[in-house]
């Protein structure tokens, strides 16, 4: 019975204009992003040779370099009196008052007045803490931030390791799929909201709520079949596009003599994107079932778009962000150092999604026993 219901729900979704818009927008977006700059970088992929003048960049953990880079950044922001901060995960430009500016300049002078040999890391940290107090939360002068954002040129050895990792551990396709996930993740933080809201409101719109409530099917079956059908159909263009965009990469891998990971188009998006879709769709289901309104559109759009603006870096720093960014081809060593963080993040969202679906089931069952509204007056017009 569940299978039949699931298939019927799939058919319903396929007929809905919202789904059609989703597919078109998703395909166009991913295609435009990746055909522009995505694989081009890849085509220049060459094994680094000793004696090159430039090998790309990497994040450093060298304290002296961190201090240098951070202070240079501070000088830049002080001179413009415009500080980038991300207090709630959203970009917020902060401008200081004259008094605050004076203090900031003083701190800067204290640090730059000394040579880097005499400025200890502890002193530097203290100064940065004070800057944080001035500009507020979420600036690049927080310890967590500045220790992960200073880029330096790679040496030959580093570049060689990077290349080897890209070819051996990532087998090219994995790296490519990460870039795909980066772009796809952006749209997938928004578009599934509309699918969820429109399904959630359809019973009410069609005035079919009462009669569906009166049937013997358990709420779990009703809600879960809808959720899984929509989830499956949301994933369909994702994996299709992943496969389609992976093909040229797979060929390219052969050319450089690497056996690409054929299944990357399934494995990487499954970890990277599936939990995101699960969470976004489930929350849309939950809010819509709870409020019987389009509230989810506002709440979740702010969440999605806000998160997008909120990224302080486009590579890594997963934390608990909804959209996991990796806007680069490769950086394999960096990625493997952050892979665990990503797993935790995605695990969290998958669990969040499951939780939202369970809550939706509970609310559905409650509404069913209470007429059609969860709270407030049950219909007063009673014949």
């Amino acid at each position, binding site marked *: 019975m569940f299978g039949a219901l699931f298939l019927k729900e799939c058919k319903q979704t396929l007929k809905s*204009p*919202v789904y059609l*818009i989703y597919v078109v*927008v998703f395909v166009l977006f991913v295609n*435009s*992003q990746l055909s522009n700059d995505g694989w081009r970088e890849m085509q220049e992929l060459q094994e680094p040779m000793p004696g090159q003048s430039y090998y790309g960049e990497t994040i450093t953990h060298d304290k002296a370099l961190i201090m240098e880079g951070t202070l240079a950044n501070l000088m830049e922001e002080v001179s413009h*009196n*415009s500080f980038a901060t991300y*207090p*709630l995960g*959203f970009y*917020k*430009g*902060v*401008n*200081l*008052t004259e008094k605050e500016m004076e203090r900031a300049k003083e701190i800067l002078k204290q640090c730059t007045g000394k040579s880097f040999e005499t400025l200890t890391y502890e002193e530097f940290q203290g100064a940065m803490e004070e800057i944080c107090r001035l500009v507020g939360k979420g600036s690049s002068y927080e310890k967590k931030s500045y220790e992960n954002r200073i880029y330096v040129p790679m040496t030959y050895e580093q570049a060689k390791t990077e290349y080897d990792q890209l070819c051996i551990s990532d087998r090219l396709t994995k790296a490519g799929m990460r870039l795909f996930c980066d772009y796809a993740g952006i*749209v997938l933080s*928004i*578009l599934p909201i*509309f699918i969820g*809201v*429109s399904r959630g*409101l359809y019973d009410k*719109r069609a005035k079919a709520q009462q009669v569906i409530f009166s049937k013997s099917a358990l709420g779990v079956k009703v809600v879960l079949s809808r959720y899984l059908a929509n989830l499956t159909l949301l994933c369909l263009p994702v994996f299709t596009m992943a496969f389609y965009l992976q093909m040229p990469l797979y060929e390219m891998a052969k050319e450089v003599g690497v056996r690409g990971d054929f299944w990357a188009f399934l494995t990487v998006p499954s970890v990277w994107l599936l939990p995101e879709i699960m969470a976004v769709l489930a929350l849309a289901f939950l809010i819509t079932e709870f409020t019987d*309104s*389009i*509230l989810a*559109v*506002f709440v979740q*759009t*702010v969440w999605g*778009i*806000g998160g*997008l*603006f909120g990224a302080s870096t486009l590579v890594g720093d997963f934390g608990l962000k909804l959209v996991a960014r990796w806007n680069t081809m490769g950086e394999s060593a960096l990625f493997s150092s952050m892979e665990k963080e990503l797993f935790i993040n995605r695990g969290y969202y998958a669990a969040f999604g499951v939780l939202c679906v369970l809550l939706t089931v509970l609310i559905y069952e409650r509404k069913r026993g209470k007429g059609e509204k969860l709270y407030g007056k049950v219909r007063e017009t009673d014949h």
Partner: protein
Amino acid sequence: MEKYGKLTISFVRRQYWPHMVMLLLLVVFSGGFVSFKGLDGMQAARVMEMYGTFGGILLFTPLFMPEQDREIWELERSKQTPMWQVYLPRIVLALFLCILYILLFVELMKRGGGNFDPGILFRGAYCEILFLGSIGFFVSALTNQAVIGYMAAVIYFAFNIGGGKYLGKFALFQMMQGEYGNWSYWFMGAAVLLVFGVFMRERRR
């Protein structure tokens, strides 16, 4: 006149107030997302264009929500008052709320010691916010589904982040790049979409 007042109050009570509350929340929580301290012209424009524009989507997309129910729509159509006269007061209400909303932002930014021309910012922001809102309005009129209207407006907004160059004079986020001349295009676009929205909706069935 009293008739229109009654119709509009009923619309607010039954359908619109949650949107007005959301708009208020958008203002109340703005401090967490944008800074109002010492903004210059471009920074102030950024606040209005990246954050303030959501207010337009919120205000103009749901104006047809009662009539999404076919029975209500048919009932209203059977009355003497032409439908455009039912919609017009709602549009006027939304236009008015939009003015208040932008004035509030401009005031907040002025108090934060902003250094910009409030008149020019207001004109541009009003037209831009109206334009984005009218996209939601138009699409929800066309499809008879507010959800699709929101979807269209949000997609248009998102598309402008990377693809503004393809939209010519109708691109959003122009003022924060120092281009203040597009307000008339936004305004014209909005006017056309609003009028055609009502027209298409009533011609459809």
